[in-house]
């Protein structure tokens, strides 16, 4: 299969590195508005052709799959053009800046017999997948509730609040936090399904360019409830996922490799916390070492992106079910829409 990529920025590096490892996938072309950026990526990843005009690339290369890794507001037009060129589209989150655009995109894909896959990379990290395995085996019990909280310093160096060069995500409803809503929503959707109702709180604690720097939400969904949040004040940076089942509970930090389970134990009840604590300590020590070692090599916390891309290409090659389907994308984005602030500033 021939793959092409539009937008050779930071996240593109992960897409390209992953694609280089996939059997049967040819990195055929790359496109960026900056000629040097496109050419440098082509040199580095041994890509045959580079372009500054995506339409010229689509026409000349005729890729099977196009990865759209540009700033969010440009996704819709580029993805539509790629579908028109008869390519499947893997698009970075958020897939579009407005839900209507997403509906148009999905409809266009269905008409063309192509697929649009939005990047829900954290769903495919090892921790959520291991929790899923235990759910499917019956060991975990039915999920009743999920909590997802991202703590990330948006105002720090290299963050979203550079006064000289405003980050493209600041144009989204909700500002920089809106860039993370697909992560929160995709994880909630993964464990408790489509939402029925959502209550949100958007606030601003610090003076900055950002319209909001704190976000909380409570959702009622088809298979349980969810509490979602984003804090740009709480430190250190963390990506907490807690899943509550009828037999077990799981806690993971998706920025690290930490994943602990707490469940029934074959010991007298008063001793349960003691043995749980011992096991949790041991698991965390092992995870600390694994987190350190993975800093030297590979995608790190973006391991789920590699997994999602690999699964997608396998599914496209053998015609099996995609890891992210059109209904997933629509349901997750309906949830994202419900989470967005009603006004841009509090």
């Amino acid at each position: 299969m021939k793959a092409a990529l539009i937008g050779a920025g930071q996240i593109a590096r992960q897409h390209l590195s992953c694609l280089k490892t996939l059997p049967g996938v040819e990195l055929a072309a790359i496109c960026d508005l900056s000629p040097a950026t496109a050419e440098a990526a082509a040199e580095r990843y041994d890509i045959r052709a580079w372009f500054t005009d995506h339409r010229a690339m689509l026409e000349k290369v005729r890729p099977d799959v196009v990865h759209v890794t540009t700033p969010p507001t440009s996704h819709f037009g580029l993805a539509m053009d790629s579908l028109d060129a008869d390519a499947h589209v893997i698009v970075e989150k958020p897939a579009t800046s407005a839900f209507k655009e997403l509906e148009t995109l999905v409809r266009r894909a269905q008409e063309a017999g192509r697929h649009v896959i939005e990047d829900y990379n954290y769903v495919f990290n090892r921790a959520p997948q291991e929790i899923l395995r235990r759910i499917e085996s019956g060991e975990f019990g039915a999920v009743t509730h999920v909590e997802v909280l991202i703590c990330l310093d948006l105002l720090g160096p290299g963050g979203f609040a550079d006064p000289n060069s405003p980050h493209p995500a600041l144009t989204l409803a909700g500002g920089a936090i809106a860039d993370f809503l697909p992560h929160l929503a995709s994880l909630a959707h993964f464990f408790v399904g489509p939402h029925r109702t959502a209550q949100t709180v958007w606030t601003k604690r610090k003076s900055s360019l950002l319209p909001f720097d704190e976000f909380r939400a409570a959702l009622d969904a088809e298979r349980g409830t969810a509490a979602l949040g984003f804090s740009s004040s709480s430190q250190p940076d963390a990506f907490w996922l807690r899943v509550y089942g009828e037999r077990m509970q799981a806690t993971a930090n998706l920025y690290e490799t930490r994943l602990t389970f707490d469940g029934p134990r074959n010991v007298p009840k008063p001793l349960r916390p003691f043995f749980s604590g011992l096991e949790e300590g041991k698991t965390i020590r092992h995870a600390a070492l694994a987190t350190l070692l993975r800093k030297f090599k590979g995608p790190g916390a973006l391991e789920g992106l590699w997994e999602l891309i690999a699964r997608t290409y396998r599914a496209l090659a053998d015609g099996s079910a995609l890891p992210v389907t059109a209904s997933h994308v629509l349901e997750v984005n309906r949830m994202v829409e419900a989470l967005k602030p009603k006004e841009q500033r509090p």
Partner: protein
Amino acid sequence: MRALVTGANGFLGRHVVGALLARGIEVRAMVRPAARLEAFDWPSSVEVFRADLRTSRELRRAFEGVDVLLHLAAVVSGGEDAQFAGTVAGTERLLDAMAASACQRLVLCSTFSVYDYSSIGRTLDEDSPLHQGPDVYTRDGYTISKWWQERVARRFVEKYGWDLTVLRPGFIWGRDHGYLAALGQRFGRHHLVIGPLTRMPMTHVENCADIFALAAADARARGQTLNVVDGPGERIWTYLSDYMRGSDQPGWRLPVPYWLAIRVVRLAFATVFRSATKVPSILIPRRLESRLKPLRFENRMLRETLGWTPPLGYQECLERTYGPTAPTATGRPGAASLAVANRRFNFRNRFSKSS
């Protein structure tokens, strides 16, 4: 003559502005939109142009009435992609704007980092080999972006027939920038000194600024690529001693011969870190070489082409960097020259009042 200076409020840029003014050259200083300039005390003749090379749409206006561009701006912090976007894509946008103007003269600030240290035997000079793609992508983000910046500039020059001078400074030091990457590895106040007797390719920021102003004004600089060092350089041990005394940061220094360090790092890389991609620079052999390989550095081309000698000697540079109580070569505060040094220090910081 009017010069446009990008990165004008940066460490080198603020001194280049002063050096250009001292030569009677009018200055348009390009700074980022949110840059604070109160501390610089620039004369009113300096025209400030606010723009960010990554995003600004009005770059063409910056070239109105400009005879020479001194392009110093580069992003030196953040990840590799942020550096590339700021330095390389920013340069593309800037030079696109220049191509639409009457300006035909470019002085580019490059760096020693573009040289392939691994392929250089004894002496690094202007004829030494540069990195070649795709090998360059094994280097750090700064090297990649500066190598590409020079590549982009040369392509524009070839396309539009401009006059180009490329100046490649070694390690630039000065007030608030006394610590250099060539000093080895710092652990808090303590230092692992790799190759303590190695001489560093270094230039004091005021000497470096002087050569940029000279290159802008002097026709002999056209078409030249020149390395910028003040001389053969100080030994790492000596300079580190001066830095620790001058900045009043006492600590331990552990000397390690370069040959031993590079062998250990090569062994570690071949065994433990073989396929790792995110190892600290000092543990990657080729990056260690580019920081610490013992080579000879000289400024012969600079002297012969432009007849330049550094205006400030090492002792004067120490005084500019650390103030009137700067260490002397013998390690004693320069008390005898206190009054003179004080006067010079105040005068020369007219254009460099940093916080």
